[in-house]
C-alpha cells in the first residue's frame, strides 16, 4: 500500500485524462465514477447491447472527439482501478474519502485528490415546471445517448445558451417534431464582439462554431422556429405538460404585453446554463468564488488545478464551464500536477509533460470565455417566478414562502435554507440553489453555500457494510 495514490472523482473527459496522465507518471490511480461507463456528460455511452446505427453529419465532430479521448484513455486503462457505479459521498480530508456503491461503502485515502465532477443544468422555474413531461435539455440528450430513446413526440425547448439548440436538432434527427426553440437571446450575438477582437479565440473555436452551424442547419431544414429574445411564461396541461407559453421580452426578461404565443407539446425541455458540481471541493474546504456565467460557486484554482487545500485539485467543468475539449486538456494538465504532488509534494514537477495540453487548453479557454456571455440571464428573469410557483421541487417550497422568509430577515442563502427547508431535500439543493441565491437578496449569490457530508443519499445497507481500504488501487 505504499505507492503514491491519486484518487480521481468523475470519469468525464477531465477525469479520464487526469487518471491516464497520473497512471502514466507512475501513480496508483483510483477513478471513482457514478456512471456505469466512462465518458461523462458529453460522451455518455449507450451500453454495448444498444449499439446504434449511422452517425449523422452534424453529430460526426462529437463522435470524432470521443474516439480520440477514448483512445488516449485506453492506453493507460490497464493501470487504473476504475470503479464505475460508485459515488464519493463525503470528504473528511484527503485521508478519509467516503465512497459508496449500491451495496457497500468504504473510506479511502489519497495523496492527491482530483475532483472532476463536471456540472449539472440550471433551470429557472416557471409556473408548471414540475408537471410530468417537463425535463431539462440534457435529459433529452441523456435518454438518446445513453438509451437511444426519444423522450416525446412533440418537444418544445426554451432557455439560454447553445444547449437548447443542440438538443433540439438532436431531437429532430431522432424523429421528433420540435414546435419551437425559445431563447432569451441569440447565443451567437455575445460571441462576436469578443471573437472579432481576438482572432486566436475565433480560430480555436472554429470547430465548435462549425458544429453549431451544422446543428442550426438541421433545425432550418426541418423548419423549426428559433425565436430569440423570448422568455418562457408557463407550462400547462391536465396532469402533465401539454403546452408551453412564451412571449417576447423587453431585454431585461419582462414579457412584452400582447406577444404571448402558445405551442402544443407533450414534452417541454429547459436549460438556463449550468451549475458546477463543486460540493466535494467545498466540503474539503476549498475556497470558492461566485461566477454566474460559468457555473455559480466555483472552487478557486490555479493553472495546475490546485485549490486552497494542499493536495486537492479540481479539473474540467467542475471548475467552471469550458466545454469537453478544454476539459480533456485540463485533465491532462491537472493529472500531471496531481502526480507531481502525490509523488514529490511538487505540483510543478511534471509540468513539461503537459505543455502541449496546457497550450491547447489556453486556446479553448479564450473561446469559451467569449461564449460564456450567452449564459448571462436578463436582469429581471426571476420576476416571472410567481408566488405560487414551486422553487424547491423536493420540499415543495414556493416563491411566496421564500419571499416571506426574506422579508422576515432570513436573507442570505444559508439562513434561507434553514428557515424554509428549501434546498435541503433529496437533491441536496442542486435543482434550486441558484434560484434561491437570486431570490435571497443582495447577500444571496456572494455567500459561500455550505456543503455537508452525504451529498449523495447512500443506502443504509451500503453504510452498514463498510469494507476496508486494502483492496483499492493496489
Amino acid at each position, binding site marked *: 500500500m505504499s505507492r503514491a495514490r491519486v484518487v480521481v472523482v468523475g470519469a468525464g473527459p477531465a477525469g479520464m485524462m487526469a487518471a491516464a496522465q497520473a497512471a502514466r507518471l507512475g501513480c496508483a490511480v483510483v477513478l471513482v465514477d457514478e456512471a456505469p461507463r466512462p465518458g461523462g456528460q458529453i460522451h455518455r455511452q449507450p*451500453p454495448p447491447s444498444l449499439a446504434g446505427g449511422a452517425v449523422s453529419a452534424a453529430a460526426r465532430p462529437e463522435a470524432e472527439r470521443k474516439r480520440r479521448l477514448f483512445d488516449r484513455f485506453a492506453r493507460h486503462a490497464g493501470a487504473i482501478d476504475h470503479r464505475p457505479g460508485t459515488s464519493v459521498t463525503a470528504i473528511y480530508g484527503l485521508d478519509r474519502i467516503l465512497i459508496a456503491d449500491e451495496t457497500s461503502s468504504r473510506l479511502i485515502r489519497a495523496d492527491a485528490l482530483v475532483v472532476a465532477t463536471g456540472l*449539472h443544468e440550471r433551470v429557472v422555474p416557471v409556473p408548471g415546471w414540475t408537471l410530468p413531461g417537463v425535463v431539462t435539455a440534457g*435529459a433529452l440528450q441523456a*435518454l438518446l445517448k445513453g438509451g437511444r430513446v*426519444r423522450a416525446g413526440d412533440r418537444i418544445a425547448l426554451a432557455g439560454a445558451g447553445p444547449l437548447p439548440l443542440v438538443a433540439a436538432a438532436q431531437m429532430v434527427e*431522432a424523429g421528433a417534431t420540435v414546435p419551437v426553440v425559445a431563447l432569451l437571446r441569440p447565443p451567437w450575438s455575445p460571441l462576436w464582439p469578443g471573437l472579432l477582437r481576438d482572432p486566436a479565440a475565433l480560430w480555436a473555436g472554429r470547430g465548435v462554431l462549425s458544429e453549431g452551424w451544422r446543428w442550426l442547419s438541421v433545425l432550418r431544414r426541418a423548419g423549426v422556429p428559433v425565436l430569440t429574445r423570448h422568455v418562457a411564461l408557463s407550462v400547462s396541461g391536465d396532469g*402533465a405538460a401539454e403546452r408551453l407559453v412564451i412571449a417576447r421580452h423587453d431585454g431585461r426578461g419582462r414579457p412584452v404585453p400582447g406577444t404571448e404565443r402558445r405551442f402544443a407539446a407533450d414534452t417541454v425541455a429547459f436549460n438556463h446554463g449550468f451549475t458546477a458540481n463543486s460540493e466535494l471541493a467545498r466540503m474539503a474546504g476549498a475556497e470558492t468564488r461566485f461566477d454566474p456565467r460559468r457555473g455559480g460557486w466555483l472552487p478557486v484554482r490555479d493553472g495546475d488545478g490546485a485549490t486552497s487545500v494542499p493536495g486537492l485539485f479540481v479539473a474540467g467543468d467542475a471548475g467552471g464551464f469550458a466545454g469537453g475539449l478544454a476539459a480533456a486538456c485540463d485533465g491532462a494538465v491537472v493529472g500531471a500536477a496531481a502526480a507531481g504532488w502525490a509523488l514529490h509534494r511538487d505540483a510543478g514537477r511534471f509540468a513539461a509533460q503537459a505543455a502541449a495540453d496546457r497550450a491547447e487548453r489556453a486556446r479553448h479557454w479564450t473561446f469559451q470565455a467569449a461564449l460564456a456571455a450567452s449564459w448571462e440571464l436578463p436582469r429581471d428573469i426571476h420576476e416571472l417566478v410567481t408566488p405560487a410557483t414551486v422553487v424547491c421541487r423536493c420540499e415543495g417550497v414556493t416563491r411566496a414562502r421564500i419571499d416571506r422568509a426574506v422579508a422576515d430577515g432570513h436573507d442570505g442563502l444559508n439562513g434561507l435554507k434553514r428557515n424554509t427547508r428549501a434546498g435541503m431535500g*433529496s437533491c441536496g439543493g442542486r435543482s434550486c440553489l441558484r434560484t434561491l441565491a437570486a431570490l435571497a437578496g443582495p447577500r444571496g449569490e456572494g455567500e459561500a453555500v455550505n456543503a455537508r457530508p452525504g451529498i449523495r*443519499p447512500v*443506502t443504509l445497507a451500503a453504510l452498514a457494510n463498510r469494507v476496508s481500504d486494502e483492496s483499492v488501487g493496489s
Partner: protein
Amino acid sequence: MDRAASSAAATPSRRPDVREGEGFTILFEDRFGQRAIPAWAGESVAAALLAAGERAWRTAEDGSQRGLFCGIGVCWECRCIIDGRPNSRACQTEARPGLSVRWQVGPGLLPDGGLPDGGAS
C-alpha cells in the same frame, strides 16, 4: 390524458436508432393496475417508461405527480419503487427482464398507502 392511446402510438417509434439488442419486458404498476412495458437490455427504467408513453411514476408530498426531470441522477424526481426498494431513481437503474416498477407515494409508500416489502432504502 388517455394513457392507453398515447402508449400504443409511442412504443415503436421512440427508439429511432436501435439496430440490435435484446428486447424483454418489465412490469409497471400504478394506481390503475399492472402492465408489461417493453425494454431493451442496457437502457434505463426511465427510458423504457418514457418510450412506452408513461410520463409520471410518483406522487410527491404536495400531491402533484412527477416523472423524469434531469435524466442524469441529480434531481431525484424520478424516484419510484423498483424491485421493492423505494426511492430508487428510474433514470439511474438499468432495466432487467422482469424488473418491477411501482408507483411511489410520498416518502416511499404504495398508492394504497401500504409499505413495499422489498429491501431497505
